[in-house]
């Protein structure tokens, strides 16, 4: 018995310590990477009250790019849409109507973010619904990744301090629904 124990101990000694340490380090790094990925994937959308990271929208009309950093002090309505998205069509006219309602006040900015779309189709969509507020592509899906959207349409309302005031997953049913959310952000 003692002899077999000695033999086993000898076998274990054969594996250098640096191999064991590096194997465990690689394993831990791999697990950490997986954990980080899972955390990001399961984080869900930006929560109400959270500071929204700044982003930039390059409009389709070729105008100057819009930086949210420059819009502090105003309420920003960020609407994610796509020309292939049928539910987006349900709220397109309502959003335009709400925009026209707030346009002259200068206190509210509407931004349309075209998610994973082709420019030709997107332009056709904007023309079809006479959308006049700034719209642009979600280049490299950078904006949708900031908000961690799960689909389209989704609308996020950012308050004057750059924090998320409210969000709507799915299409708005009426103009009243939009204005009530925007008004509550204005009154905050």
């Amino acid at each position: 018995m003692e002899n077999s124990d000695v033999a086993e101990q000898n076998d274990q000694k054969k594996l250098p310590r640096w191999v064991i340490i590096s194997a465990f380090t690689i394993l831990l790094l791999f697990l950490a990477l997986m954990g980080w990925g899972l955390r990001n994937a399961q984080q869900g959308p930006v929560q109400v009250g959270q500071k929204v990271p700044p982003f930039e929208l390059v409009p389709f009309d070729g105008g100057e790019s819009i930086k949210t950093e420059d819009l502090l002090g105003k309420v920003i309505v960020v609407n994610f849409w796509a020309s292939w998205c049928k539910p987006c069509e349900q709220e397109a006219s309502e959003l335009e109507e709400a925009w026209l309602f707030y346009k002259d006040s200068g206190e509210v900015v509407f931004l349309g973010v075209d998610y994973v779309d082709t420019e030709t189709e997107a332009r056709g969509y904007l023309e079809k619904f006479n959308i006049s507020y700034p719209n642009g592509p979600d280049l490299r899906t950078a904006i949708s990744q900031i908000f961690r959207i799960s689909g389209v349409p989704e609308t996020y309302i950012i308050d004057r301090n750059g924090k998320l005031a409210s969000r709507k997953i799915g299409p708005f049913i009426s103009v009243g629904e939009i204005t009530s959310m925007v008004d509550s952000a204005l009154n905050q």
Partner: protein
Amino acid sequence: MNQIKKFVSNKSYILILLIFVCMLLLAPVNNVNAQNDFPTDDQINEIARELYCPVCENIPLDVCPTQACAQWRALIKEKMVAGWSKAEIKQYFVDQYGDRVLAQPPARGLNWLVYILPPLAFVGGIVVVYFNLKKVKKEPEKLVPNKNIENDKYLQEMEEALNVLNKKEDLS
């Protein structure tokens, strides 16, 4: 003789005329085909199968049935007609929608792990298997009786006890 010569020359004229007419008939048809067939669905799908639409996860663009993917394929066609190369089209999609649209992520940043880890794991696996096989081959050597085993008190007692038992059985 003259009549035969005349007949042959007439026949060759008719043949040349026929070939000429056939060429005239085929020429416009070929031109039309060339205009309509470029790019073919196969040519479009050759690029599309290397792209993934972020909306439809894990479905290559060439077989994706959604409207978004159909629009992307139409865009590929548009770019091909405009004379863009495969690399230029793929780069356009990357610029518009990010690296994740590519079936094979570009080898930069954390993406390197995708290319390094599998071969490393494979080589590591081979090393582990090799050492284990070596260990298995060595194990029978460990069973070779030790010289000290003959002096083991416990084994001697066991053998004595077994001998007593055997004798008892023989007597009964």
